[in-house]
Every structure is written in C-alpha cells, then in structure tokens.
C-alpha cells in the first residue's frame, strides 16, 4: 500500500489498464489521495487484494472503502466485496458521462481536456464522500 491506512478512507480504483475509463478511475484516485484529501485517504493496489495479500485484506475489512470502476465489469467493487471489504461508496466512471454526453475523454494512454474535466468532477465527488466518512471534518 502507498502508506499506512490508519484512520484513512481507502480509495480503490480498478486496474484500468488499457481503457480510457480505467485511466480516469486511476487519475481520479490520485487527485483525491495526493491533492484533495491527502490526510484522509489513501489507495491500495487491487492486484494485491486479488492475490490475497493479508495486509490488503485486513485493510479493506477495517477501513471504509470507496471503489472506482472504469467499466461496468466492476472489478474493484466485486473484488473488494469478495474480500469482505467495507464498501462505503461505489463510483462508476461511465455514470459521470451521463452529464457529458458525447464527450471525448482521450485514450487509454492520455486524457484529453474533456477527460480531465470529468476526472476532476469524479475526484471532487469522491473527496466529498471521504469528508463525510471522516465525520464531515475538513482534513
């Protein structure tokens, strides 16, 4: 894991390799944990969880988790759930496109301007939820 999860909300994106929606899930996660709520959130590598890493399993079972999935296959949500994780919120990148019909987000390797805009919105949405989960306190 990136750092100690003590007291922090876990923001867990899908692996998201090779698809633009996956890249958006990852970038939204970084936006939250690095910029918007660095003191209240951290992330966890989904592959570790999938491979049964004990520390990762313990983390998702004891800390509130926000899963972010790029596509409707919901890899993050399903694997966190399978590991017995406490899912406080499940976010789907594709849902954010409902307010941005026809948007061109970019490619699997690089987001375009519209992609960054939607990613920022998702990041803000998750950061707000992180604050709620931390009792509404500003971090």
């Amino acid at each position: 894991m990136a750092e100690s999860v003590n007291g922090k909300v876990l923001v867990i994106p899908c692996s998201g390799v090779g698809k633009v929606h996956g890249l958006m899930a990852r970038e939204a996660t970084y936006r939250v944990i690095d910029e918007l709520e660095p003191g209240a959130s951290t992330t966890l590598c989904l592959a570790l969880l999938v491979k049964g890493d004990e520390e990762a399993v313990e983390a998702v079972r004891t800390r509130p988790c926000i899963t972010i999935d790029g596509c409707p296959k919901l890899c993050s949500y399903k694997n966190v759930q399978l590991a017995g994780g406490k899912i406080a919120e499940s976010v789907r990148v594709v849902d954010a496109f409902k307010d941005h019909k026809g948007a061109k987000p970019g490619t699997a390797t690089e987001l375009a301007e519209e992609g960054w805009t939607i990613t920022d919105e998702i990041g803000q949405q998750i950061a707000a939820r992180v604050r709620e989960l931390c009792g509404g306190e500003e971090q």
Partner: protein
Amino acid sequence: MAERFAVLPCNGLDKAVGPLAREIALAVVEACEGELVCPVLFNNLPARYAKALELPLIVIDGCGTRCASKLAAEHALKVVRKLQVAEALKEMGESAGETLTPDPERLALCQRLAERLLSAPEEGTTRDREAAFTEPVEYATVTRDKFIFRIPRQGYLFNENHCWVRVAGGRARVGLSDYMQQELGDLTYCELPQVGAEIGQFDAVGSVESVKAVSDIISPVSGPVVAVNPAVAETPEIINQDPYVRGWVAELELRDLESDRALLLDGEAYLTLVRQKAADYRP
C-alpha cells in the same frame, strides 16, 4: 513492424514503481501493436483474454511482490519475456522517484525499458539454454576420510533432500547432488518422469536405485517436465560420474522460481549442510 506480444503488467498503483510498470506496458503495446491484458480483469474473467494470449506473452512487474508473474504462473501462461521494474532500475542506477505520477525523466526511462524488452532475445532459446546448462562448474569440496563431496560454488540451488536445480532461460534442470549419489553408491536404475507431467516443488521427479537403496528424486522447483535425460536411464552410472552436468534427470519449465527459491539453499548454505552431514557420514 516488431513482433506482436500480449503484455500482462501488474496493477501498478500504489508504489512509485507500479505506474512505471503500467507505462512500460503501454509503450510496448503501442510499439508492437500488441494486446494489453488487464491483470484484475484477467483474474476474474480469463476467457476474456483467450485470443490475446495466443500471442507470445511479456510479463511486467513493478515491485517484488510480482503479482503479474504470480498471475501468469497460476494460469499456466508461457512467458517469453519478463521485466521487474524495481530490479531493472537498480541495475541501471536509477530510482522510481517518490510520486505515483511519473515525471518526464521517468517516462523516458520507461520508453527505454520498453525498447529493451522488445529487442531482448526470447527467454531461453534452445542453444543459449544448452550452453548455460553445460558451462563448466567450479566446485567447493568437503572431505571425509577417502570421500570427497563436490558442491558447485555458483549457479545451483539445492533442497535439503540433496537434489539440485540449475536455471537457464526460464527452464531448470534437476538432479542428485554428489553427496546423495555417493551415499547411494553405484546406481543401477534411474526412473525418469513423463514429459508433460506437472511437478510441484518437493514432488518426486523420478527415482534412482542402487545396490543399497531406492530413493526418490525430490524436485527443488515446480513446473511441467519439458525434457528428460535418456542417457541416465540407459546408463545410470553417469549420475555417479558427473552428477551436476551430464547426470541431470529432468528439465522443467519454471512456474514460479521466486516462490520456489525461498525454500532452497544456495551453494554456500548447501556446503554447510554437507559439512554437517559429512561429519556423521558412514559409507
């Protein structure tokens, strides 16, 4: 255009080397117009990638946890090239940096590593492997009365069952140690495994019989048997004469050497074990 590959990177998320693994994977796929395999989706829905995995496979791990390699091993995928980013950076005298978002310098490094992967020779071509398996061996020795036990100083790993493994290009040859063959005495029979048999670490990969005893050959590594040495079945005394090179018993395709290695002894540690055994040796 370069040969096409399927590329299985690790998830690459929460350590600085992780995003580099992902960047390298994307660069390789872009350069060779290959297929990217999402590790978590592959774990959940392997059939989704059945077509992509008809291509030769490159595995890229960020950190020492080696999630992608483990995944490939669990699904019995044949890996033709491998990269562990943390190790590669160390070899290059570079670091992964501190952040999860690679800077331009790190992105350039990723590009170099991607190019290196694409131009690397396929792991273990037959000729390279044969040369590696038959390189001369430098031995340490343990002497007890008239008996001299030889232990290769380098290039071999051992289990405590006195069987060795020598690795080259994604494959491994296994056999009996010099101590074991001397303890057994003149060998009269060697049973080989079937090619294609799936062998787990510490499973029997054959057996030998001598005038004194019958003994299983306990495999130090796991994987399918891809070749056997008919010479030792025909003339078992080859194992007595040259246990570490000509006396190999079976060749396995490695599934997860990193995990297997954790339970093996290097030459130095095995030398210590043989010294202890030799002190009590009664031929």
